């Protein structure tokens, strides 16, 4: 029992560092995107009162990466948001590995199930 507890504690410290890194990186990328976006569109008029849905290149993972490489401010922001969404996904992946090291196969299975749902949402469903 106590060896498990210590294992869990160590895992959680690593998980904490992972989350902090992910959020910091995401916020930094979003901020850079904001600078580009303001420089180009800062004086434009915002309009979110009517829902039109974002264009294709800001909706799919490949479109966002492509746009960010082309230095589009909105695409860089979106890339930062993708990194943010990926942070909890990375934490779930890490937990699966940690449970596998502990040979807790019931929880490897449970964790992979959660991971599958997240990956479906991010890539599977019309991504």
């Amino acid at each position, binding site marked *: 029992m106590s060896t498990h507890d210590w294992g869990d504690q160590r895992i959680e410290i690593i998980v*904490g560092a992972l989350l902090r890194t992910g*959020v910091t990186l995401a916020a930094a990328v979003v901020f850079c*995107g904001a600078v580009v976006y303001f420089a180009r569109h800062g004086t434009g008029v915002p309009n979110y009162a009517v829902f039109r849905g*974002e264009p294709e290149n800001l909706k799919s993972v490949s479109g966002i990466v492509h746009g960010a490489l082309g230095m589009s401010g909105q695409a860089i922001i979106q890339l930062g948001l993708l990194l*943010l969404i*990926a942070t909890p996904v990375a*934490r779930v992946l890490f*937990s699966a590995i940690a449970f596998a090291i502990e040979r807790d196969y019931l929880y490897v299975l449970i964790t992979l199930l959660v991971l599958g749902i*997240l990956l479906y*949402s991010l890539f599977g469903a019309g991504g």
Partner: protein
Amino acid sequence: MNVLEFSALIGLGSLLAGFLGALTGLGGGVVVVPMLALLFHVDIRYAIGASLVSVIATSSGAAAAYVREGYSNIRIGMFLETATTVGALAGVGIALYVSSNAIAIVFGVVLLCSAYLSSRHYVDGAHLPPSKLAQRLRLNGAYPGPNGKESYNVTGVPAGYGLMFVAGALSGLLGIGSGAVKVLAMDRAMKIPFKVSTTTSNFMIGVTAAASAGLYLHRGYIAPGLAMPVMLGVLAGSLIGARVLMRARVKVLRYLFATVIVVLGFEMIYKGITGRI
């Protein structure tokens, strides 16, 4: 109002929401959507997308601070996440087919409920007999108390699991963390000690929100120009709030924030019924 001014105003509002949300433990996400929809006349679908993103940011940011204390139970979290993530997908599915007005009404009711729930406190059942299901799932654990390790047993697994599905569905439908429902499921149904349930719930919120955020992104609900000030503002506000929390007397603030939530709740219901959202 140009893009720069609009972003600055929304960033400031989000900062305040994140600050008060962290200070009172109610979460900032719950006021972001009403703020955007009622104050800035943003379409509720864009508001939900932006709010979800900020929920992931605060959850991950706060979790990084929490994990060092060793209260959260990673097995309880992961097991219940199978319910919240499936619930989140269901919530998004519902959101795609119901009208904005219906979403606003549900949102208002949830606001009123979370204000009510936050005004009550429960005593946890510290030394319960272990339940078979909890034992098989290895959910029982221990946390560092004042007199060394305090172990606890978990009960009511099916009820807690069901409530978690509802929490996930509300998170996906409304773009909020559903922290109130998650803590309710763990405190009341599963009798998990308060310290463990709050930290574990915070841990789960990010994963739950990530499950619906991907789907919303692909459907064009996440507008970068709007999500950017909301995410940065709420994140900064919640980090400041978490620091101030150690020193502040939050009781008065809690009531104040709960009052704001109640007012926003009625406003959302009213706007939803009269079809002006």
